């Protein structure tokens, strides 16, 4: 009887896990391992894979020689530096406002979420129009107050600024609502205690809200880190990495090397170098987390 039960359990475990295990094997483990192998070959996709040659570390050496790799990495960090703090600060600000119990506040909460549900491609095309130098709405509005706007997306410096601003614009509602959920979890007791001690609104923000919100903020930091390293859709649509590489990014480089220049081996090597950088930054952040994230209990 017991033997039967155990037998059933093994079969059940196997059957319930099988689809997920097959997926893990076919779409994660196998591709990962072949990516390592490919990164040491000169394979160009066009020739048959039986004719590919092993070239040792030369793809990796080329990654470090190529200036474009550095540009892409630099751009991603510039993006990160502009994007992460703006998103966090504006997100907290908006969340605090959305947390007030005002009549009609639900409509505002619904409105700020609209950019979040829309596809990056559609949003990027709309912003290409708004930011257009001649027929764009933004430069028209600027001209009304006497400012001659740049040709945003074709300008060496403003292109990146525009990409950062549009990405903050799209992700702000998401982050604000996550922070709002965090705010609503903070017990009223803390605020009452602070009030008894005569704390000002500003003091309450610094000494109660922000520390209690720090785990949620850490989550926002993690999300913005992932978004930065995965930066692709908006860049491909809005600037295609230009002008002159000013907005080229990691994923954009891997994509173009693999699928436009057919340099599969090189692209694979590039993706691993970038993975190493991502891993390093993530671990660093994890380290720093202990210094500023406060967990209740």
């Amino acid at each position, binding site marked *: 009887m017991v033997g039967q039960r155990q037998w*059933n*359990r093994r079969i*059940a*475990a196997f059957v*319930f896990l099988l689809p*997920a*295990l097959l*997926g*893990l094997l*076919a*779409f994660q*483990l*196998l*591709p990962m391992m*072949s*990516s390592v192998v*490919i990164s040491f070959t000169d394979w160009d996709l066009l020739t048959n894979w039986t004719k590919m040659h092993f070239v040792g570390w030369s793809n990796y050496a080329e990654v470090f020689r190529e200036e474009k790799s550095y540009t892409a990495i630099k751009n991603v960090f510039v993006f990160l530096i502009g994007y992460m703090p703006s998103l966090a600060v504006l997100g907290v600000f*908006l969340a605090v*406002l*959305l947390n007030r119990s*005002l009549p009609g506040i639900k409509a*505002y909460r619904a*409105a700020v*979420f*609209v950019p*979040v*549900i*829309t*596809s*990056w*491609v*559609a949003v990027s*095309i*709309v912003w*290409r*129009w*708004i930011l*257009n130098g001649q*027929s764009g709405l933004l430069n*028209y509005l600027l001209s009304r107050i006497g400012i001659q706007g740049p040709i945003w997306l074709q300008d060496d410096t403003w292109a990146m600024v525009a990409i950062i601003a549009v990405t903050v*614009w799209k992700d*702000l*509602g*998401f982050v604000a*609502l*996550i922070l709002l959920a*965090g705010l609503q979890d903070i017990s009223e007791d803390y605020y009452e205690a602070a009030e008894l001690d005569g704390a000002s609104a500003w003091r309450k923000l610094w000494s109660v809200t922000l520390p209690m919100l720090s785990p949620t903020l850490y*989550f926002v930091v993690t*999300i913005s880190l992932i978004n930065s390293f*995965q930066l*692709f*859709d908006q860049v*491909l649509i809005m600037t295609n990495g230009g002008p002159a590489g000013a907005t080229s990014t990691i*994923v954009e480089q891997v*994509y173009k090397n*693999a699928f436009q220049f057919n340099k599969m081996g090189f692209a694979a090597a590039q*993706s*691993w170098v*970038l*993975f190493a950088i991502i891993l390093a930054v993530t671990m660093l952040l994890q380290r720093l987390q202990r210094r500023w994230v406060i967990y209740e209990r």
Partner: protein
Amino acid sequence: MRGRRLLANGLAYLILTAVSLVLVFPFAWMLSGAFKDSLEVVKMPPTLLPSHWNFDNFARIEQYFPLYRFLLNSAVVAVATTALQLLVCTMSAYAFAKIPFKGRQGVFLLFLTTMMIPAQVTLVPLFILFSKTNLIDTYAGLILPGIFSAYGTFLIRQHMLTIPNELLEAAFMDGASYYRVFRSVVVPLVKPTVAALTIFAFMGSWNNFLWPLIAVNSKELMTLPLGLSKLQGRWSTEWDILMAGNVVSFVPIFLVYLVSQRYFIKGMTMTGIK
């Protein structure tokens, strides 16, 4: 005191309205642009609303691109991906949470590790795998990579762990099979998390761009984001046409959002936090 409160509320309304306008206005601008004609769309100073509502832009797109086919493809791919992902994730979550077997800890850890691998690392080999198996330019090729989500498994497993084992034992005592317990006891109890994952998976698939960009060549199989990018390739600055394309992609997801707004926000933020 009361006066100060009134002032603070007024200020809050003012800022909230300004921020919401900035976040929502581009969509209004897109809608209005889609119905302007090619002259009015670049006119300076710009007009807020079209002087006459013009529907030609949609027809012009249809001459070159099967726009409504894109819409259909997006719907098919998103629905199939979401349904299959939910099935695979709840099944594996059940095994990880409620069926003890040898090596469970290790396999689960392997699952979690794959969550860390960024998409660009598997991009090249995945493409090769799909082209060798003739799955490039097929619905299966579009759908398959999206149905396995270690994150989804993890999320549902966490919820399943909170179900007391005594509840399952009672069902086993009554002679229920593992499948029966899964269907009638466990899944009904984790419905909120499954609902949240549904929204998350659907949005992810509906808006996905990178994989369709690689996995599809023919117009007949393009999803909306990919199709829109092709529209941009053909009419790079003909904003009236581009906005018309955007409207077709925006309106369906926006309507779904309006109807199920509460679940959307809950689903997205819940999958985010927990």
